[in-house]
């Protein structure tokens, strides 16, 4: 039995400790926003936060998350109102949408660490996330917009 916290909620998971965190999240805990894309840490569709850092859950063993804090796309914000989610919706970033959970989770770490990223910063931080539909141009714009929304929110506090 492995205990982990997902989006602030404690879960006891009875599964093979070698099972990738991805499948524990999806099949056992039942949160399907985190996607399977390649199973080899190549595409980033499965990106979640483990203690605040981006990890590829398809190659992260469940045992590594024992006693740790996991945040998935479902926990990025309470009401789909993280600045990135707002920007993604404003600029109609998703096409098929399958990779976007991973894109958002990677972008969230970038924006936290670097509130005013340049195009180069964005390209570097997002290089691990594949989008087959080709939404990259909008992802770049949306991260800039989210940075602006975040700055405004901070300023008004």
């Amino acid at each position, binding site marked *: 039995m492995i205990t982990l916290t997902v989006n602030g909620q404690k879960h006891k998971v009875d599964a093979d400790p070698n099972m990738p965190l991805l499948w524990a999240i999806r099949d056992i805990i039942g949160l399907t926003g985190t996607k*399977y894309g390649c199973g080899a840490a190549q595409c980033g569709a499965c990106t979640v936060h483990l203690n605040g850092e981006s990890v590829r859950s398809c190659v992260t063993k469940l045992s590594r998350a024992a006693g740790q804090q996991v945040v998935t796309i479902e926990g990025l914000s309470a009401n789909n109102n993280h600045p990135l989610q707002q920007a993604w919706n404003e600029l109609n970033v998703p096409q098929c949408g399958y990779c976007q959970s991973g894109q958002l989770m990677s972008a969230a770490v970038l924006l936290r660490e670097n509130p005013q990223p340049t195009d180069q910063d964005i390209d570097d931080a997002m290089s691990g996330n594949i989008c*087959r539909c080709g939404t990259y141009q909008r992802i770049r714009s949306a991260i800039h917009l989210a940075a602006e929304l975040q700055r405004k929110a901070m300023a008004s506090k």
Partner: protein
Amino acid sequence: MEANAISRRNFLKISGLAGSALCLGTYFVAEAKNENLITAANAEKAGIEMNAWIHIDTNGKVTIVDHRAEMGQGSYQSVPQIVAEELEVDLKDIDVIFGEGNQEKFGNQITGGSSTIRGSYKNLLKLGATSRVLLVTAAANKWGVPLIDCYAKSGHVFHRPTGKKFHYGELVEVASKLTPPQDIPLKTRAEYKLIGKPLNRRDSPAKTNGEAIFGLDKKLPGMLYAAVERNPRMRGKVKSFDATEALKVPGVKKVFKVKMGVFTIYREGVAVVATSTWAALQGKKALKVTWDDTGFEHINTADIYKIQHEKLKTDEGLLLQKVGNPDAAISKAAKVIDVVYQTPYQSHSAMEPVNCVAWYRPEKLEIWGPIQAPEWVQDFVSKQMKMPKKNVIVNMTFLGGGFGRKAFMDYPHEAAVISKEAGAPVQVIWKREDDLTQGPYRPGITYRCQGVIDNGEMSVAKFRMAGQNIDHWSNGKSSGKANDSTSEGFLKPYFDSIKNVSFAEVVFEAPIPAMWWRSVYASTNGFAYESFLNEMAHEANKDQLDFRRAYLKDERCQQLIDKLEKVSGWKSRDKKSGYGVAITECFNTTVGQVVKVSRQQNGKIKIDKVWAVMDCGWYVNPDIIAAQVEGSVLMGLGAATTHEITFKDGLVQQNNFYDYPMPRIADMPPVEVHIMENTADAGGVGEPGLPPFAPALTDAIFDLTGKRIRKLPFDMQTV
């Protein structure tokens, strides 16, 4: 029956949903030329089409059915955006649901050939307008006032003189008893409040918080998970298998041989059914399978192109179209431009790998999955499973990309077979490696193009294509006729202006599963034919845009060229950079692109900018169109510069994104999209942005380096 007439029997009235409801599911006689499926040539075969399904309950709640797949191209937004316009409802007040596969109810549902809008919009408009008029008439009748004093707005009917109103729900019962009126005038484009506006996509929120349910996200109570070890050569069989180790994996419940139909042949494999995805994948890994790979050719990529090149030297092939006499003109010419282009096999590689949920019970088979052609799945699976069609329910989920792959029926059939054997609902997952190595693929094609420039004029253009005909694969046999798609991508006005022009298919067969890949043959034809026109323009010492202007006499083409010239700053292009151009037709839409490249300080070539002008006639949502063109450019970039599926001894040599690498964010060039405004019929949107990119890019590289690229993919790092 008159075209587009509505007969009373086609209005279906259903009660029992919230008491009483108006369900308008209306058959119209399709305007066949608008329903241009898959290839330009079979357009006339499209028959009766039923378009949409509006449901209004007695509380006034309006539900609009999206009868097509949503795989990123925007049907979930654009279908309701059309219906709501004439129905006079606010998009924020309606629900949208996916229609299940049902040809009798919805007519054609295949999401292919960029047909969602162009194949449906006229009927969707009429369906919305008819419903609105029925509701307004019902209100006038209830009030006992003249119809002319009543109007519809925001889901209500108002009486103009008094301001009194009904919501639609209060009118459905009366409306459902009325005879549908004929010849309802539709709004003009200037009157549209929704159509033509860049409204936000209604599927965005669910795609940013994890709520959107894709095929792989479908869960059922008691559902098991399955993974299948399939013969890596599609035509091979299972000789024997040893499940001992697989059955030792905790969670693995059952291992058995499985056979699934792929059009006219069967693929074989061994299924591992387990209590979790992970257990199924572990079990699959532990299987020991011996294959029987006798009785068919094990092909190598090098041989494919060698055969194609050899055949094109002498084989005139099956003629598709001819104007004048190209051969006679070539034999008399002082100089003939004679070049060969080659394009590779491609994988669709949607981000969501192939998967499907099936729940078999003797009296009912239910399927959920990322499916492009639900009615085809219903038809195919019911035949394969020997069940009445009505007992096979095909439910739609969001698709994590499709690009043509998910119009195959093999994976729903496989899931059905496994569910039946397992005696439970089962989700079958294809690993990325399964998705990439099993195909089907866009076929690899070699082209021979011959032309003559006579006193600066292009007097001959002769094209031959050697590559697999997708229809032969899906029909299981050769038609003996030229591939309909041989001239796909080539703009029709050229046939009126080039004195001698011909297209022929040089037959090439291979045991490789071939399927439509975004923009189908236009994606490869476009590269060959447009590259050739650029070579001809160079030979004639003409500017590439002026050269096209001289042959594309059609008014819309002229306007598109003018626009492309203007937005790209073509006339004032700088000398340090390379500029290239291409214009192709695909699914009744013409797209022109200009690509600008430059040499970086590190010696590598960078794409600085792509300008795209699309003429798709009548259109719904310009922002979705822009997004589709941006995406098409990126997919075209991968196909032009990186992607090639290769075969060795009949086995695919690529496995995952580490050896079939996808373009990343840093590879995305800035793309600027412009849409032509005109009153022409709607063309496709999801695919036509792809074909012109590769030839425009290689033309730009020629402009910069003097080097012609005639074989794809080429390496951007080394040109």
